[in-house]
């Protein structure tokens, strides 16, 4: 196989990964790394570098569509980005010292968790509970539009959310993923944000978080342009197509099928990692 053939195949695979990622809400990045390492035999460090790039591209590309809906909360996003970017720098710095087989195993575990978390229904938000002192101080409480007029929400457990965001950032930096599922835990489960607000705000944060670790990957020589090129362009096309299909059909069965595919990929990552082959 020469470079031209490999580039085309990686591009096609990335289109599919982006498509599935958008459809399942897992994000394209988390499927690209197993694809590159398991199917194409790419070194996991190059794979993670290329994936980070695709994560920034999809997050920034989707921002316009999200903003139109008016759900994202720029203050919560910016405040939590302090935690995710510092976490990302920590994770990316760790990546140089952790054996690649461990990274593969960890990746598999996070992948399984993401597949599981994305299939769970969202919790009801905190609604009209009393104000939280820290959230009030940070002016995080806001409202979002509904057909029946704007609905206000209150934020709680800011320190817990902040700490969880540091972990999400570190996972993003170490594994080259957007950490969407971990971010949703911090915002949905801990801070009790309405589901729509947390998903759109999380999308905004993913690009900034990934940029913090991508700078380190670039400087360390993990960003191979020839590999990142088809991955980035493919995932962009795929997630654009996936987002279009998603708005037209509620594909619960399809999502379940993909969750199984993702789980199989995760087990394979863990197996190859334990066998020391990645």
């Amino acid at each position, binding site marked *: 196989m020469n470079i031209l053939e490999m*580039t085309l195949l990686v591009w096609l695979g990335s289109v599919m990964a982006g498509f599935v990622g958008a459809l399942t809400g897992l994000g394209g990045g988390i499927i690209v790394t197993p694809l590159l390492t398991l199917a194409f035999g790419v070194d996991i460090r190059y794979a993670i570098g290329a994936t980070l790039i695709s994560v920034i591209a999809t997050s920034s590309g989707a921002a316009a569509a999200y903003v139109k809906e*008016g759900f994202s909360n720029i203050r919560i996003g910016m405040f939590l980005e302090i935690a995710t970017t510092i976490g990302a720098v920590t994770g990316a710095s760790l990546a140089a010292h952790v054996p690649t087989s461990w990274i593969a195993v960890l990746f598999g575990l996070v992948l399984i968790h993401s597949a599981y978390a994305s299939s769970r229904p969202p919790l009801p938000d905190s609604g009209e509970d009393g104000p939280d002192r820290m959230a009030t101080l940070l002016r995080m409480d806001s409202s979002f539009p509904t057909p029946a007029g704007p609905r206000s929400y209150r934020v709680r457990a800011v320190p817990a959310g902040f700490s969880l965001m540091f972990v999400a950032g570190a996972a993003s930096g170490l594994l080259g993923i957007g950490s969407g599922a971990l971010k949703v835990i911090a915002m949905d489960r801990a801070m009790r944000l309405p589901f729509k607000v947390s998903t759109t705000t999380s999308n905004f944060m993913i690009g900034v978080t990934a*940029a*913090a670790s991508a700078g380190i990957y670039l400087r360390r020589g993990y960003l191979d342009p020839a590999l990142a090129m088809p991955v980035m362009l493919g995932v962009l096309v795929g997630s654009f197509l996936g987002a279009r299909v998603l708005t037209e059909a509620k594909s619960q069965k399809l999502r379940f099928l993909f969750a199984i595919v993702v789980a199989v990929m995760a087990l394979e990552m863990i197996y190859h990692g334990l066998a020391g082959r990645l």
Partner: protein
Amino acid sequence: MTRFFAIWSDERVETIIARLLQTGVLASAAVVTLGGILFLVRHGLSVPHYSVFTGEPSGLRSVSGIFTGVLTLQGRYVIQLGLFILLATPVARVAFAVVAFAFERDRLYVGVSLIVLAVLVYSLAWGA
């Protein structure tokens, strides 16, 4: 004067930010595509070696190295420039937020955005 500040509502800021991000991604994708064509024309028939990790040459690792390499029109450097544009868009977004919060006279969030900006600049300039 108040009217000038009034246009800096949160929604307006977010719309501008979203457009900024979209423009960055499109510009990056265009440069990466151009670089990809240059690269494939010259190296398309060689054998790939991604299974062995060697690390990129130093010219592809630093901003100054990328800009010097782009002048030679080598595909790899042009792609890397495109990737750098992509990396820079979230940074520009945070920098824009600093300015927007300053116009809103929200000192607390000017500080918050400046911390995030500092971490991003650190990782791009010195992080290793």
